[in-house]
């Protein structure tokens, strides 16, 4: 396994770089057409909920929608605080605390 480890790391590094660099280099070169700019503006609107929601609602790949699932309490806290425009650091700290608390009590 020893010599293979660096080969695997190199392969992983290359595979990952191929997901990061090409579009960054191509799209940074020239002004973009209007539709493409609109498309790029919408990507975070789609990606942020897609990153967040499964992490909150799924537990080991299954739906976990019940009051005994601590991340739901954390998400409720985040939604309220974020809607009130509370600072991100405070929002996250409170949410993390609530999740830890609910887990400790549960």
């Amino acid at each position, binding site marked *: 396994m020893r010599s293979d480890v660096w080969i695997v790391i190199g392969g*992983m590094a*290359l595979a990952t770089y191929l997901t990061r660099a090409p579009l960054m280099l191509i799209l940074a070169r020239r002004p973009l057409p209007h539709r493409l700019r*609109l498309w790029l503006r*919408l*990507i975070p609107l789609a990606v942020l909920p897609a990153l*967040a929601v499964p992490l909150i609602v799924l537990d080991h*790949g299954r739906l976990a929608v019940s009051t005994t699932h601590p991340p739901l309490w954390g998400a409720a806290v985040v939604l309220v605080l974020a809607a009130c425009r509370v600072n991100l650091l405070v929002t996250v700290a409170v949410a993390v605390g609530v999740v*830890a608390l609910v887990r400790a009590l549960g």
Partner: protein
Amino acid sequence: MSAPRALRDGVVASLVVAPSVFVYGTVFGGLAVQAGLRTIETLGMSLLVFAGAAQFAAVPMLGAGASSLTIVLTTYVINMRHYLMAATLAPAFRGFPRRWVALVAHGINDESFAIAVARRNPPDPWFFIGSVLAVCGSFVAGVLVGTLLGGLVADPARWGLDFAFPAVFLALAVSQLHSRADWLAALVSAVLALGIALVLPGNWHIVITGVGVSTVGALVLDRDAA
């Protein structure tokens, strides 16, 4: 905004995820050493690959003697979401030397993308670089500590630290909602991603939702909405 100021702001704005990134770095470092990797290999992977989810997936596969090709392909699929982030970030780096862009691209990560793009889209390039430095620094420092001491926190979830990541993504998603179309796009994305995550493993839900919703939105929305 001046470059040093934006760089500093990017670092400061990313401190919100730094503790969780650091602790998960220690967990990764500890697991990697347990699985038989040396400190130098674990650090090398963290600097050269710098993609937490893929690294957590790779270590047990390495330990179990999976083929190199399988591990590399798994890494690629887990990281395909970077294509979307790279496309979104690229316009911020117009006029930058290509070597710089090639280097900055290596730093793309979920947290820096979320924090920088939620503030402004396209983001301030130096703000993004500052965020990458903070996230990368926290992660690599955590990995180093983890390889030397083992995971510091046996179960980060017990302290709610796992929840810092969805909390940041969710709070930033809320901060992006300005128009009715934004709400619609975000709600559709949430439901779609959940549905896909229930049936497909890995990170396909992020890739498919990201491409699908933004493409439909760009085709349907009024030109003036941009």
